[in-house]
């Protein structure tokens, strides 16, 4: 199978989904560009899976419009939408062999058995499972089952490919490998993909763009980089890559940057034309930007170690400072500084982000 020519964009216009009076998804709008991989990320119950299922047609939206390519699909049934889905449980049919599973969609589309099986073999080769056709799903490992599920979805050459937490049933080591494979395959085929997960690291690793959802609405939509460097709100700052949130004191601002105090430190950050900087400066400090020193150091703030945890590769600290309690991860440390030690705390510039947008 060569580059995917079928890829289409996906657009949500003011989609709301109500269960009774509860709004699972509230006035959500976004566009996914053709050929890109976009992740729906958020804590459980945020509405991300419902959003995915509405794209698939497994749930009907209460109001709003959904487009795939130029075509409105809001009221089309699942089978008429030209999307495929990889289920969290894989949903391989236990009464069919692997090849029958992969060929199922093709057969339903009207291919004769021979053609369907040929295409299914191609699909299985694509995910590295050639020769496994005759096995039953329960004779495969979790990772293999997952690949069968991907192959089954891919062979239909859908306009959009959906992934519902595809890695959640795999163990941690395998997860990293499989997510790379998925990303590779997606980029090779250029297929529009929408991916649901609650794991921010996974989202950062595979996505062109991430849509973070919280409380049934989109919290922020952007590239992994933008989400990390320019969090729009406290939720994003904390959810993407951990952060301690502190208040900064305004000093001055020019066209591009704002100067501010963090306790005794002076910091300059791009202000992205955010309003009301004089009144309020929400600052996110990334744990790994903080280094802890027992000797006096210039350009640092005073602190006391509340708790330290040695984890081999790094040491985690809770530090009491004038800014509040900071959470720090020190990757350079050889040994942990014990609690109650008075320390100097340095904060690297690139680990400080201005929250807002």
């Amino acid at each position, binding site marked *: 199978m060569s580059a995917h020519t079928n890829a289409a964009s996906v657009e949500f216009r003011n989609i709301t989904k109500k269960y009774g009076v509860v709004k699972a998804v509230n006035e959500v709008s976004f566009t996914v560009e053709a050929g890109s991989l976009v992740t729906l990320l958020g804590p459980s119950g945020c509405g991300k899976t419902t959003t995915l299922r509405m794209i698939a047609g497994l749930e009907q939206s209460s109001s709003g419009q959904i487009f795939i390519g130029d075509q409105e699909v809001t009221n089309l049934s699942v089978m008429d939408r030209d999307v*495929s889905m990889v*289920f969290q*449980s894989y949903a391989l*049919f236990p009464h069919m062999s692997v090849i029958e599973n992969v060929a*199922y969609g093709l057969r339903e589309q009207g291919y004769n058995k021979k053609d369907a099986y040929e295409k299914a073999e191609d699909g299985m080769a694509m995910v590295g499972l050639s020769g496994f056709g005759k096995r039953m799903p329960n004779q495969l490992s979790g990772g293999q089952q997952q690949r069968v599920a991907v192959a089954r979805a891919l062979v239909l050459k859908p306009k959009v490919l959906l992934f519902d937490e595809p890695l959640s049933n795999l163990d941690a080591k395998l997860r990293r490998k499989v997510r790379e494979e998925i990303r590779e395959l997606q980029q090779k085929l250029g297929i529009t993909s929408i991916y649901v997960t609650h794991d921010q690291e996974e989202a950062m690793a595979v996505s062109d763009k991430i849509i973070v959802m919280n409380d049934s609405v989109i919290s922020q939509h952007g590239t992994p980089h933008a989400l990390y460097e320019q969090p729009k709100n406290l939720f994003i700052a904390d959810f993407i890559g951990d952060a301690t949130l502190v208040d900064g004191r305004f000093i001055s601002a020019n066209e591009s940057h704002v100067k501010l105090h963090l306790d005794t430190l002076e910091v300059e950050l791009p202000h992205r034309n955010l309003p009301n900087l004089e009144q309020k400066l929400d600052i996110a400090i990334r744990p790994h930007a903080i280094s802890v020193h027992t000797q006096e150091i210039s350009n640092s703030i005073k602190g006391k170690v509340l708790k330290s945890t040695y984890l081999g590769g790094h040491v985690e600290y809770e530090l009491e400072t004038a800014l509040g309690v900071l959470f720090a991860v020190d990757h350079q440390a050889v040994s942990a500084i014990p609690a109650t030690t008075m320390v100097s705390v340095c904060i690297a510039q690139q680990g400080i982000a201005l929250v807002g947008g």
Partner: protein
Amino acid sequence: MQKVVLAWLTVGLLGFFALPWYAIEDGLWNFEWLIEGSLLDPDYASGALQFFVGDTIWLWPIALFLAAPLTVIKQRTDSARFYNTLIYSGGLGLLYVLIQGFLVGIAGWEYAIADSLFGELSVRQFGLGSGALLVLSALLFQFTNGLAAKGVMKGDIFVVGAIGFVIATVLAFVFFPVLGILSSAFQNDDGELQAALFLGKFFNANIWGLGCLSNGSCGVAINSLMLSIMAATISTLFGLAFALVAARSNLIAKKPIRALSMLPIITPPFVIGLALILLFGRSGAITQFLEFAFGIEPSRWLYGLPGILFAQVLAFTPITFMVLIGVVDGISPSMEEAAQTLRASRWRTFITVTLPLMRPGLAAAFLLAFIESMADFGNPLVLGGNFEVLSTQIFYAIVGAQNDQSKAAVLAIVLLIFTLAAFFIQRKWVGKKSYTTVTGKGDSGIHAELPKRVKYVSFGIVMPWTLFTIVIYTMVMFGGFVKTWGLDHSFTMQHYIEAFSITSGEHGLVWSGAAWNSFLTTLNISAISAPLTAAIGLLVAYLLVRQNFVGKQIFEFGTMLSFAIPGTVIGVSYVLAYNVPPIELTGTGVILVLCFIFRNMPVGVRGGIAAMSQLDKSLDEASLMLGANSFTTIRRVILPLLRPAIFSAITYGFVRAITSLSAVIFLVSADYDMATSYIIGRVENGDYGIAIAYSSVLIVVMLSVILLLQLLVGKRKLHRDNA
């Protein structure tokens, strides 16, 4: 360990020296011997004294087996001498008591060969009594104690004892009688083995004839087979329709439909047939209406295959429904969603995914209905007419003028072959192929809507069926208030008075109603057997779920086997097996209780397994680690958590005992008449009024018991899910 050994030693010696060795005419609980006679009366004498009063010299060695453990009681329990003494004295003692029991019967030697070996024997032996019972238990448990001391089952004295107890009782009350009936089929009238005779009887046109294909009548086995296949097919389809409506539609009546599935549990087996007679019989309500309105002649179409089939489909659909509702609910929604995202329409999804996933469940429901239909006795008895089936023919062979035991045995074998075959297929093939697809992990989603045609067909079945069931139960409830069906439809209390009147006589109240005797006996026997059924069922479940031992699969198979043995076969085999020493129980209440326990045990086992699998094994292990033994663990940890399962097992045991007919009808006696057999007697006399009145009372009683117990359990239920 020593304490337990000493305790059983005491029990055994007490049984041997102080209690009557032989069964006493008036039953186990008769203590007349304490007052009137003495232990010196041969009828009442203990095993030890029998030697002096009854010349039974062979009983004395038993004392040696019993007392042997005394010689090692001071030894370390893990010494070979200790456990070997227990194992050998217990095991050989058990064998010895059984062998002497089977060898010497009511007329001296049981086997002619012993006459020539040891000479004529003038001493007779009767059935074993309370003393012998204690001696046997003591020997059995010394044997298991010895095994435990040797380290079997991690040295757990309770678990080994429990396994030994279950095996011994199942052997005595399931395998022994059934093997007895099998062997009696091979014997001629003089008790000699004759295989040729059996083959002649077995391959007989009366059994296997195919005459009905060419305008004659078929053999009784063929009749049964046809009936069962039809009844199972139709009730499986109906049950599926119900399950689909109940699980997959947004019908308001879903809950009542699920409640309907309770009905067969509280309905004595022949009541449906009885109601059908009142509706469609020659003088039935609908028949008469049809004659009046359209001039359709009343006919006897109901009596025969159509009627039995009709009644069985009505009775078994709720049973298949109960199997299939679990299956339909168990299909993972994401399976169907996956099919839909792969472009399958609703209909195609149903055909290619939903239905195939249900296939093992459908097969299980079919086989269950097949076994039920084969074993059904009440409906063929009431509606059979000239249509002969195996279960009723076995009955007629025993109670009829022919009184042909070997014919009954041959028919019972045929019936057993069918039901056991279904049972085997169910366990070996279907049991392993189940697609329990709800994994619990990531299986949110919604079930696909039913395709329209499936939906319409299902509703087309469910609606009329429900309506008809309501009509039938209304008939049962109110039929007893009508004077004579078909002739005089005026209101009367006469049937209830005749059955249940209480008059005040000279000595206070007199239970003068005709039904009181059987009614009270039924309640009595059922109330005794229900907790015992639950106890042994849960004990077996505990052993199966929580313990691992060699032969566990065979053990499980043996305990579940009685489920596949039709009641008629059980009844006949009990009569044949327990009519003669060493176990003489015919005509007692004990035989009824035993019959209920071992017939209903599989249900308790299954319920117990289901409930116990839900309990994390770490709970028991925690208790064991804290120093409790397994018995305490069961009592303090498992039982309290299983309370709902216990109550439902007791309820079920109680209700099944009340509604049971097929086995009971062979075992009742004048002293111990049961409700169902009394009713059947009335039906055979054409006394429909009192029969239906009595049936309605039974249903109301069972319903109240169930509701009462549910109320009790509901209040005490552990609210773990709210935590």
